């Protein structure tokens, strides 16, 4: 959907960030740069839970009186429903505070346009694999604490299945709850397997933990910037051909999903304008 630019508004991208690995905030800055380049907003900023600037500092970064806050998160859950509203002092979809109007959109991961992004990533990582002979795994963390954290992933798996992309199977799997991604070879009945981590960043999960669970690494490796975990496709393991992708959030077009989420917000709450 073409985005009508908002030169008078600011976009605030909220990310998790990390005290251990700077790669985990790179996608947020990349998405911000891409949106600046597109000229979609008068200003674009990032703020984080674990890095600076903090969410509480965000208002001091912004000139505009109208701010769209987009959680660059995969699912609705603890962060989007508890931490971000608390830290940014948001009371609902729209809040007036600190002389500004704050609009709070849904997280990027739940937007329907994520489906296209996942499919594209799956095709890119395994250009030669015939979908009819391929199982596509969408992988999340899974905690058991919050049903919502797996919902976004289940939803995407269902949407891909319904999309007519032709994959023999599309399965959701998790690091820490059933169905476990570690059991991928038993879960998949096809000779080819494509695994796409449904995370924003190539943090520790997608380049250290999941490769070990998949059996393509013996033990957690170095930081992603020092490694080439994603360049060795395909892997021949457990009698199958395995293609492993980097996290979906590293996709440049995620910037479009951020804008889609803003457009959806306006369509839902600003129809009268």
């Amino acid at each position, binding site marked *: 959907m073409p985005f009508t630019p908002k030169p008078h508004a600011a976009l605030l991208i909220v990310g998790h960030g990390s005290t251990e690995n700077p790669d985990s905030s790179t996608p947020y800055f990349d998405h911000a740069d891409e949106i600046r380049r597109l000229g979609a907003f008068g200003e674009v900023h990032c703020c984080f839970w674990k890095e*600076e600037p*903090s969410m509480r500092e965000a208002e001091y*970064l912004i000139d505009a009186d109208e701010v769209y806050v987009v959680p660059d998160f995969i699912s609705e859950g603890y962060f989007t429903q508890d931490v971000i509203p608390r830290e940014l002092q948001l009371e609902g979809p729209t809040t007036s505070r600190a002389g500004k109007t704050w609009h709070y959109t849904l997280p990027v991961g739940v937007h329907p346009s994520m489906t296209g992004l996942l499919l594209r990533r799956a095709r890119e990582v395994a250009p030669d694999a015939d979908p009819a002979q391929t199982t596509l795994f969408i992988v999340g963390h899974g905690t058991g604490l919050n049903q919502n954290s797996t919902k976004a992933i289940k939803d995407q798996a269902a949407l891909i299945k319904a999309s007519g992309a032709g994959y023999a199977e599309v399965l959701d799997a998790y690091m820490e709850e059933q169905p476990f991604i570690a059991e991928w070879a038993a879960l998949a009945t096809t000779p080819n397997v494509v695994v796409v981590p449904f995370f924003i960043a190539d943090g520790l999960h997608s380049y250290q933990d999941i490769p070990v669970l998949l059996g393509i690494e013996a033990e957690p490796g170095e930081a992603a910037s020092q490694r080439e975990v994603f360049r060795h496709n395909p892997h021949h393991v457990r009698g199958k051909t395995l293609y492993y992708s980097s996290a979906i959030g590293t996709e440049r077009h995620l910037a479009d999903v951020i804008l889609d989420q803003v457009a959806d917000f306006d369509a839902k709450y600003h129809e009268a304008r």
Partner: protein
Amino acid sequence: MKLAERLSAAVAGGIRRIGQIAIRPQDGVYLLCHIDDENSDASLLEKFEGSATARDLSTWAEDGHYRFTKGELSLKRGWLLQLSSSEELRQALDHFYPAAAGLWFAQHDGRLEIEHLRDKLNRQTGMYRFARTLSDAGAQRLVSEVCGPGHCCVKKILWQLDANTPLEDSEASRFDGVTGDIDRSQAIPLLCREACNHFVAEARKASKAEQDAKATG
């Protein structure tokens, strides 16, 4: 006035420093370098342009560790960054010292909201909830053990334990947010308006240690 314009007005008015960064206006552009390189031969410094580079320059310390707290006294040397507009200057400074210029302007305008430590700790949830039980004495000690230039953080602490309990005097609580020997009126101080995540994580550890000591006590 927009932040970028205020920033360029501040530089025109004599601001030359923020944290470990020296700012030099020159023929309509801004040149940034490490304060310790200010008097070095510019031809020996690696040249960069554009604000995005600021993120790369500020991510890793000389010894290779990740600077997740940007107030850390560990900025790399050896580079010269050219920025072609006040907007680029603002973006670059927000990479080097996130929100620092905005916080300083807000302080000037009297609209900077400070959050005291108890309020910060009391709103922690999840695994950090435990930080709430830290004693006042423990919190005072932590400030002198975590903050201040002696521990590599060069921000000026604006908060207290709570509205009625100021921080005890220490190098950390006294620090004014300006690094090095410079006329204070030429520097943007780095301000700490609420305890950072690193501090909260340390508060959690210290609080646990207090509980353990009581249990075995």
